[in-house]
């Protein structure tokens, strides 16, 4: 039987505020355990939550960017359960009335654009962390993360393949970084994904029983985890079994999903409105103010890049997936005297290769758009050759920034002057009599060897086009 997979994602987007959602403690990652947990975060008797309004404005920004309804009145609710890293014994979340409902995100499904509906996005606080490995036979609790603001973005089950799921996830990741509401760091848990996965026979209109895959922390694992889970469900059903609704964890080492034990017994969370917090009100004026701060979004920017800079859709896509890269590109293209295609090639090629190699974000690279632009200008005005340009690029990568200074200091200026070149060419032809004859006899390929000899003799500084022309002229019958 042919099976169709049905996938919905719940993504926890950590909002990048300086202080927590309901207390004034700092949210910075990596501090000593429990040094960023105040009386409110550790839930001392008598403490009360106070809403950090910055958090709400970030959620509004997300709502506006996804074409969603921003609810001018939303309600915080308590989700009750016991766990040692949940200090109050309940998590403050939004249940019946979330701040954002009904948005959408367009993804490239491989054969055209596909709309993925966003059911809702609601605000909640993160829990702390249980540390099981640090203490022999004991568990530690670190409450630094408790109270960190999260926006949980819940999609409709509109995704039909692991690839679509990961495409949607990347799109969402790109969006929240464009909006500057999340740093997107998946290793540190700033962007976490749970996936609801079920299968059904092709053409069926009812949904199969779903399982929930929890806390998958990389794009690659999301795709693999869902792939494995779909495969497991297909094999299970085809063997006459039934899918059980449960929470499962993906084990990347074994490349399989396993049921999560212990914590998740059929919970009744006993949601009810939190009496400590009044309804969250977003005034219309406030909403408009946020709308005014919305940056150009990735889709619009990609379209503009294709038209304004004459880029291929693929190049434009790559450049706009990250707001900083797109900014870097635009400044570079400008500094390159408008040679946007060269700018795109250098960034998508050489620069991305090095960033990926060193696993560095663009913000941590030492090449400035101005220097890269200058480099492109020197290629275009034939001051240097493309080969020399790569050496200069390396110098820039290592932290130098004055392109002209490097060219002058190292004498890298391209030799286009035909008198100077002719001298070298004469010398080369004197040495390579045999090859010259071969060329004259019609072996075109030999010309490359001769050009190479000239380049070698000039330490790469000769203008290859000029060498080519002079050689042809000299060797013509």
């Amino acid at each position: 039987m042919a099976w169709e997979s049905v996938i919905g994602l719940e993504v926890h987007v950590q909002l990048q505020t300086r202080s927590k959602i309901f207390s004034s403690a700092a949210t910075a990652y990596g501090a000593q355990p429990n040094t960023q947990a105040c009386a409110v975060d550790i839930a001392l008797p008598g403490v009360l939550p106070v809403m950090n309004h910055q958090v709400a404005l970030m959620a509004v920004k997300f709502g506006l960017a996804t074409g969603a309804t921003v609810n001018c009145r939303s309600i915080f609710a308590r989700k009750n359960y016991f766990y040692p890293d949940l200090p109050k014994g309940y998590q403050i979340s939004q249940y019946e009335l979330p701040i954002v409902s009904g948005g959408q995100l367009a993804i490239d499904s491989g054969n055209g654009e596909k709309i993925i509906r966003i059911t809702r996005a609601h605000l909640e606080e993160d829990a702390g962390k249980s540390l099981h490995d640090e203490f022999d036979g004991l568990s530690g609790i670190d409450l630094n993360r408790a109270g960190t603001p999260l926006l949980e973005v819940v999609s409709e089950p509109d995704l039909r393949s692991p690839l679509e799921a990961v495409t949607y996830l990347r799109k969402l990741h790109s969006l929240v970084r464009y909006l500057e509401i999340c740093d997107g760091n998946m290793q540190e848990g700033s962007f976490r994904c749970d996936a609801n996965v079920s299968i059904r026979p092709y053409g069926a209109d009812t949904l199969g029983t779903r399982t929930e895959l929890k806390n998958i922390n990389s794009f690659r694992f999301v795709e693999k985890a869902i792939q494995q889970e779909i495969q497991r469900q297909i094999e299970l059903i085809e063997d006459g079994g039934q899918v059980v609704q449960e929470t499962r964890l993906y084990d990347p080492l074994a490349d399989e999903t396993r049921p999560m034990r212990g914590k998740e017994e059929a919970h009744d969370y006993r949601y009810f409105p939190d009496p400590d917090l009044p309804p969250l009100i977003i005034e219309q004026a406030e909403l408009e103010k946020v709308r005014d701060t919305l940056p150009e979004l990735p889709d619009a920017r990609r379209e503009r890049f294709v038209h304004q800079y004459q880029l291929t859709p693929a190049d434009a896509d790559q450049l706009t997936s990250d707001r900083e890269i797109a900014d870097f590109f635009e400044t570079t293209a400008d500094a390159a005297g408008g040679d946007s295609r060269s700018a795109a090639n250098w960034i998508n090629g050489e620069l991305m290769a090095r960033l990926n190699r060193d696993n560095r974000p663009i913000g941590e690279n030492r090449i400035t758009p101005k220097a890269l632009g200058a480099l492109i200008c020197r290629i275009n005005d034939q001051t240097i050759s493309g080969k020399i340009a790569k050496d200069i690029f390396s110098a820039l990568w290592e932290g130098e920034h004055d392109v002209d200074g490097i060219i002058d200091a190292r004498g890298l200026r391209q030799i286009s002057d035909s008198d100077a070149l002719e001298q070298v060419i004469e010398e080369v032809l004197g040495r390579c009599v045999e090859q010259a004859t071969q060329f004259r006899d019609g072996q075109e390929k030999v010309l490359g060897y001769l050009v190479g000899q000239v380049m070698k003799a000039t330490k790469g500084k000769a203008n290859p086009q000029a060498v080519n022309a002079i050689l042809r002229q000299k060797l013509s019958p």
Partner: protein
Amino acid sequence: MLQTKKISSVELTSHFLQRIDQNRELNAFITVDAETALANARQADISLNDKSGDLLTGLPLALKDIFCTRGMLTSCGSRMLANFTSPYDATVTERLNAAGSVLLGKTNMDEFAMGSSNESSYFGPVLNPWNVDCVPGGSSGGSAAAVSARLCPATVGTDTGGSIRQPAAFCGLTGLKPSYGRISRYGMVAFASSLDQAGPITQSAEDAALLLQAMAGFDPRDSTSLDIEVPDFLPALKTSLDGVTVGVAASFLDSTLDPDVLAGIEEALRTFENLGARLVDIELPNSSAGIPCYYVIALAEASSNLSRFDGVRYGHRAEQYDDLMDMYEQSRAEGFGDEVKRRILIGTYALSAGYYDAYYLKAQKIRRIIADDFRNAFQRCDLIAAPTTPTTAFRLSEKVDDPVAMYLNDIFTVPVNLAGLPAVSIPVGLDQAAMPIGMQLIGPYLEESRILAAAHSYQQVTPWHQRIPEAFT
């Protein structure tokens, strides 16, 4: 007296510390810190001498053991917190300190403010100074007993369903529950967040106004506290009762009311008329639904509020347990008393899947209807007079085994909390057993001034608020 230097703060503080010490059998206090109190009194005397004193400078006070006090035990009457010393001050504590008062100690209370007789305290029951075989009321029982026996001039309690007014009534005192949001709840151990409100238990309406002034006002740490200007409560006391309309609901004065209490209320109403007030009939048709509504909402909130007491970070943790779940269960089984457990169970049930709509949501609807009833009634009157309790103080252990009878003691007080209104209970007489009778004056939202002025006018012409139980004169 302090400001005119007839007596020093040290003298006054020593006097009350001595009385506390002499009357330990009342069990009104959980913690007394004589040393700090005297040190603060000495500081206060310096301020009084150089006239840099504040509203309450040098005045000895006690706080219900539900308010966090830095460096002092805050037990909330529970074994769960019998080892808990707060690292921070509640806003109420902070403001009373800032106003210059001298904290004598922390008063006994029903465990987590759950009770109407102070018998659920882990630290044992409190005795009523008017008759030591009777309860002082609850949950602020220790606070009321302490003022009644003149172990301190005034205390601050909390009122979720009557916990200030009922013990004030049982002990012949003035007890004010302000409007919800008037005083910050920050640092007050939460019982039912949408109902809890701090307020003074004092010997007169004037004292109540003074303490209210010191505590009231917006607190950015409590999102439910009101960001509005605080009126001057003391000058407002002088407003006369002339022409004031007092609403009386016949349904509150029916045959189920204790006859002595009824007589006391009727006598007080005549005095109000003599002072120029006009009585009008009003109806509060749905207030009988108040008790069930209250017990659903309050206990639902409580079941969640008390989840933080899990033995993980502070408070009682069982000595022995098998695993995490067992640690929770043992710690909470040992740390909480029966009444608290009963209420957590009821509240958990009311919020459970499948019951939420029938209980919690319905209770919220009734709550709105009760609030509407009051709003309608205030179209016809300036304030409402009603009994505080159906009877005077009952005997110790009389109702311990009958929770519903105990809960029904709050029948006249809980509708006020559900509507978020201010109300003050004042003593209006004694019954045949010489136990105090209380009457409450309920005001429209934020009209503390109005009810305090009415109480003050009444107290200018009646002796009841000055009566002290004989054994403690």
